[in-house]
């Protein structure tokens, strides 16, 4: 096949046992742990852009790391590493077996493993951001995985989205309506979006933002810092 390795032919699969590292052995888990915040929302709504913004604006002050859950590739993790938003060792990518919502809700094992790996690697993490794979409006994070969650929807997805509701829009600790700069271009009515969102969410907060206009995600950053102050550190 394609694995030509320099002597004129390719093997079906190359297998050199000497190529491999030693088996991984677990360090003793660090006591205490970082606050975990999930960032979910439909495909392309701006989750990775938000993670990057938060890493840039909070990275100096807060010891943070990121877990990504791409559906298809390590695109998000690669983006964060490539753009030097975070050192590569602070980003872990999780495979979700084609089921991004399962990995954040029904069976959170792979994500917990990734978080614990990061906590063991750094010992003193204060914040882990978990970006879900882009999914639909019903995807929410398990409370067993994160302490708080942000749901990101996109103005360009249409101003009907908040009205449709679903557990993400309705129950997330913070709803972010992103890409407000695109509203005039797609004919989205921001008053309708925020009005529907606040009606459906009651007292839960809603932030509208444009990462083009505010690349630091100032308001969301402030909300995250509040969570760090008030989420009791669990061990």
């Amino acid at each position, binding site marked *: 096949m394609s694995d030509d390795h320099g002597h004129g032919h390719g093997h*079906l699969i190359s297998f050199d046992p000497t190529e491999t590292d030693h*088996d*991984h052995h677990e360090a003793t888990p660090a006591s205490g742990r970082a606050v975990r915040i999930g960032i979910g929302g439909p495909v392309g709504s701006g989750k990775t852009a938000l993670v990057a913004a938060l890493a840039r604006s909070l990275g100096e002050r807060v010891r943070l790391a990121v877990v990504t859950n791409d559906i*298809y590739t390590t695109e998000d993790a690669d983006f964060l590493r490539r753009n030097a938003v975070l050192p590569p060792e602070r980003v872990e990518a999780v*495979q979700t*077996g084609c089921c991004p919502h399962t990995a954040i809700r029904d*069976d959170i094992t792979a994500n917990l*493993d990734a978080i614990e790996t990061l906590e063991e690697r750094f010992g003193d993490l204060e914040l882990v951001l978990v970006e879900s794979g882009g999914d639909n409006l019903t995807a929410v994070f398990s409370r067993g995985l994160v302490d708080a969650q942000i749901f990101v929807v996109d103005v360009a997805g249409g101003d009907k989205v908040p009205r449709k509701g679903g557990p993400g829009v309705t129950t997330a600790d913070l709803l972010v309506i992103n890409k407000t700069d695109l509203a005039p271009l797609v004919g989205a009515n921001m008053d309708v979006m925020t009005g529907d969102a606040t009606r459906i969410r009651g007292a839960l907060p809603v932030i509208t933002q444009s990462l083009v206009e505010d690349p630091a995600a100032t308001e969301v950053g402030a909300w995250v810092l509040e969570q760090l102050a008030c989420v009791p550190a669990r061990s």
Partner: protein
Amino acid sequence: MGLTSLVLADARFPGGGHVHSGGVEEAVARGLVQDVETLRGFLLGRLRTAGLVAAAFAAAAARLAARGTDARGTDARGTDARGTDTDAWAAQASPAGAWAAQASVAGAWAAQASRAWGALDAEFDARTPSQAQREASRAQGRGTLRAVRAAWPSPVYDELGPRPHHALLVGAVCGIAGEPPEEAARCVAYLAVSGPASAAVRLLGLDPFAVNAVLIHLEPALDAVVETAVHTAAHTAVTEDLPAPGAPVLDLLAQAHVAHRGRLRLFAS
């Protein structure tokens, strides 16, 4: 089947199994598994090799865990209900069957059990030449341990370490819950094919009814694997003699899967 082995075999059990394809993702990428028929062959081969090893070790682990649970209870009562048992595991764990005579039955048992768990772990490693597969097995064990500690608390898990092989842990849980080794073996043998079958449905969009029927058609092969596993676990005096069938292509597929980092990968194994 008891509730424990049913729950452990359930695809919805939250132990991280859904992110593992057991080599199917790589086999699909290479065109080795393309449809229901090629999947059938893949599953049968996997069942008779990796599945048999897992089943035999699960059965052995179930026996060992059940014995450990008994020994602890025995110590509390100050008697040894199992002292006359000539079982191979006791013989291995305690040369000359002397453990019943020990002043502290549980203390002696603990040291012997610890050696026996270590032997099972090392022998399972030895039967898994691919590092990627060892990692996958231990990753599933680690994930399952989290769920298991919450549902079936037991000091036995301390013997298994933080990243036990999945088959050993499942066997241990079944033993702790009082299920026979046969159920432990059936559970892991089934998981050896059900997970990959589900992965194939997701990757290839195969008809789920056809794939489900393939699993049911594997029943005679699965029964044979379970029987061999249970029989050898019961009659093998030394861990080294547990079955060691190999499927080199599965090992190679697993290695190739992790080697190609740049490529599309939806599954951890």
